[in-house]
């Protein structure tokens, strides 16, 4: 026991030689902080300076964000969980690697000065500070922080993947197994099989399929995939629901356009399929006129809508 103390005593000067005392102590403090808040340090002005001290032998990934509801930073809230996830995943690795890279969150309301110093207006931002000293100092000697590129998205997966470039060992992040989804799928499958005897006739009835087909094609041809891939909003701000520009559209347009298409199509079908079967001339005549007018009006509505999207389109019918 005593011996051990002595050893420690002897070891001490060596440590001193290895790393300047302050750095070491800072690191230990940081490790503590990190452990306290499962893997992600909550920074303020002081700890920020500690973390990013020019003598740091460690690297760090700092999330600059504004989580306070008053700041109304929706993306911050979206992003924060995945950052926490990755942080937690990192806290799982072996101590010596773990303590040479830190995850930290710097909230605007706790460290305005830092934000001002960095001159940052937008959040969230992830800065990755490479080690500025010691063995892990990057070969090219670049110690300035690099910024995580959000074009990879807010999800934890890509974040971990990208940050792994800067950590001593890859971040052992695994996407949590989505029980509910798979469970749901399995359940629905079971239910389907069970109910096959009852829904069978419906599935075999061709008009079910017809409906499905037509709806699909209507939705697709009115730009649903665009809104999905581009994540276009349902409507624009200030209540406008037509996106300006030819190569752009809002979610609501999809619906409206699909409806117009559907109406026109059904009007045609009416004229073609239903009307000839009406036995009384007068009613038939009424129908023909009605549907013809519907077609004409809806068509001109569609055109006017298109003229809004594509200025310089020369043709119009009614409006």
């Amino acid at each position: 026991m005593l011996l051990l103390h002595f050893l420690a005593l002897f070891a001490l000067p060596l440590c001193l030689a290895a790393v300047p005392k302050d750095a070491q102590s800072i690191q230990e403090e940081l490790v503590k902080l990190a452990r306290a808040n499962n893997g992600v340090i909550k920074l303020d002005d002081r700890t920020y300076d500690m973390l990013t001290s020019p003598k740091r032998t460690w690297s760090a990934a700092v999330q600059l964000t504004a989580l306070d509801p008053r700041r109304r930073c929706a993306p911050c809230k979206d992003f924060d969980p995945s950052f926490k996830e990755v942080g937690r995943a990192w806290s799982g690795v072996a101590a010596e690697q773990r303590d040479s890279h830190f995850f930290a969150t710097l909230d605007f309301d706790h460290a305005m000065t830092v934000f001002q110093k960095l001159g940052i207006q937008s959040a969230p931002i992830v800065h990755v500070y490479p080690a500025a000293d010691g063995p892990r100092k990057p070969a090219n000697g670049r110690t300035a922080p690099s910024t995580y590129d959000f074009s990879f998205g807010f999800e934890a997966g890509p974040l971990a993947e990208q940050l792994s470039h800067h950590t001593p060992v890859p971040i052992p992040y695994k996407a949590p197994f989505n029980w509910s989804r798979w469970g749901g799928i399995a359940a629905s499958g079971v239910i389907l099989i069970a109910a096959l005897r009852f829904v069978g006739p419906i599935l075999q009835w061709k008009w079910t399929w017809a409906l499905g087909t037509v709806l699909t094609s209507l939705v697709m041809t009115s730009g649903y995939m665009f809104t999905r891939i581009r994540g276009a909003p349902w409507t624009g701000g200030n209540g406008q629901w037509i996106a300006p520009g030819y190569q752009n559209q809002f979610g609501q347009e999809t619906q409206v356009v699909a409806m117009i298409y559907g109406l026109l199509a059904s009007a045609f079908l009416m004229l073609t399929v239903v009307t000839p079967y009406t036995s009384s001339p007068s009613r038939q005549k009424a129908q023909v006129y009605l549907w013809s007018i519907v077609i004409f009006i809806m068509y001109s509505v569609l055109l006017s809508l298109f003229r809004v999207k594509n200025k310089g389109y020369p043709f119009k019918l009614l409006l």
Partner: protein
Amino acid sequence: MTATTAYQVPANLSPTTVANTSSLLRIVALALISGAAIASRLFAVINFESIIHEFDPWFNYRATKVLASEGFYAFWNWFDPTAWYPLGRVVGGTIYPGLMATSGVIYSALRAVHLPVDIRNICVLLAPGFSALTAWATYMFTKEMKDESAGLLAAAFIGIVPGYISRSVAGSYDNEAIAIFLLMFTFFAWIKAMKTGSAFFGTIAALFYFYMVAAWGGYAFITNMIPLHALALILMGRYSSRLYVGYSSWYAVGTLASMQVPFVGFQPVRTSEHMAALGVFGLLQIIAFAELVRSHVSSKQFQTLLFASVIGLGLLGTAAIVGLTYKGWIAPWTGRFYSLWDTGYAKKYIPIIASVSEHQPTAWPSFFMDLQFLIFLFPAGVILCFKQLRDEHVFVIIYAIVASYFAGVMVRLMLTLTPVVCVTAAIAFSTLLDTYLNPEEPEAIDEAPKPEASTSAVAPDTSSAPTKKQKKAAPPPAGSTLAELVTKAPGTSKRKTGVFGLDTRLLVVANAIGMLVFFVWHCTWVTSNAYSSPSVVLASSNPDGSQHIIDDFREAYYWLRQNTAEDAVVMSWWDYGYQIAGMADRPTLVDNNTWNNTHIATVGKAMSSSEEVAYPILRKHDVDYVLVIFGGLIGYSGDDINKFLWMVRIAQGVWPDEIQEPNYFTRTGEYRVDDQAPQTMKDSLMYKMSYYRFAELFGGNQPTDRVRGQQVPKTGPTLDYLDEAFTSENWIVRIYQVKKEDPLGRDLKTANAFEQGKKRKRTKPSPRRKAIA
């Protein structure tokens, strides 16, 4: 003979006369449609000239010239050392030769009959010519679906619909130009084979499938559509020996043939794109066998056993395929295909694909622009297909769903949607016309008299001719379709259906004709305005309204061709690779066939990093000239500064710690080129080359970039490692020469500074000397 008819029709016509007249009219109509299809694609030639458009066509054109001049075998194993310098490119093995082969054949055929047509003109006019064939193929296809009148309508639609014209105007010499014809004809042959169960048509389908494989990467669409159709039929319990014969003959011959194309090789048995076809083929064999046994064996249990075993075998087969895929014997979906399903995939993992504008999703206006009123006739047509659900209609329905999804995901796949839209719309429209042109009133009992088919002849102007012709060509078969209609009436009452009165008819028909005419206007307008400019030549208009041609690209390319060394290597962003190879005839680092991501990333890095960093890269690839496109002076928005971020992104993909996209944005995350532009941006080679001496052009006034609408710094960037070699008239193309290392071994920056100092002293007297002169 007291049929109550809405309008008088001569009843005393012999059936033969009617038949002949209608067939004659049909031929005339088809001829006029072809004429219209070709004519409406010539805007580009008339407004500009007979020139190859865009980017990829320039490569096809170049390859075709090689084929025409050096013969097929030379072309077949043509190694192009000037592309992808220094790697080079094995062209023969990395292209779909169908297009070049086609025009090569046409070329030599014309030569043979002493018509020495310039190969360029053949290439330029190939697409319009084939569009006429497409119209014909669509006619045949739709005829199988409904009847001749629908066929003619469909032909007319596809002939002038912008969705197809956009890829087949004169000069857009690309694979799609011939592919759509092949697509439609293969489908027609398949339907024919499937209906008649003739191995002959199966083989025809196979042969055209082979042609398609040789012509366009989109052949995978056929490879999956036909099996899908077959599978659907089987699931609907519509298996028949006809289906078996048709499919087997198509698959066997088609697959073997397709494997002859070197670029395809063994993919048909090695990649997932082709597994569906293989699987369905196997399934069909099993079922056929089962049917055979069933027809011979009577025992009930045995049959059930057999049935079970069939299912089991089928499952086993699929399991085997899946297993092989996991084992890696069968390659999984390639990125391009995969990105159709997982729409986020491309942007993350293959930015090069994502960066192409025609791979963006489609917003609804483009749909309407390209298909106009067909787009809402399309669902109606699909419903009508469901109404009489014959085997071939199943095909159309599947096609409709799949194609509309694809078209939604990628703009360029609008092309595959267009034919089916035309077909279904034609079915809907001609059904309407049939109903309302049919003269007889419901109470009539006797068979339909043939309406006289040559009333209301109109002298048509070419573009609106087809549609009018439709109306006339529609009546002849009206009788037969009426008969169909009657028999198909679900209400099994004997009462004949129909339309009362003349006014209703007139109203609907007038409405219909109005729509058709409007459609013609629309198509003409769209074609002439949107789809007929050969992005090589830009057109602006003078103050007096006359057309002013901006020809900077060719100016610069031709300068390169005439005044630089034969083997001078030109570096540019990959978009311009093919054009440089085609027009300037100089080696390029990267081009539009983006097969080597790293190489492209290298160029991206050179462009986006500072001179000092870029110079070694340039020297290593012995680049002599660097070419950039700069629209800032006249506001040409498609320039390199606007594409710059993609270069950065692609470079970042390979050198994440040297190039970082955020460094090219301002603190506030804006993309600026003015004083606020971040230093990384200002130092980047691209920025420097674009704005070099740009400010001086404004003689002290505040220089403005007309594209970005921003005010660039008064003191422009300086270049130490590059020299301005040429700048085109409107500054769109700027070419820089890479300096050789300094002979005295100084680094070029200091050498330059020294030069500057000396020059300033030396240039003093020069004005005096001029004064004497």
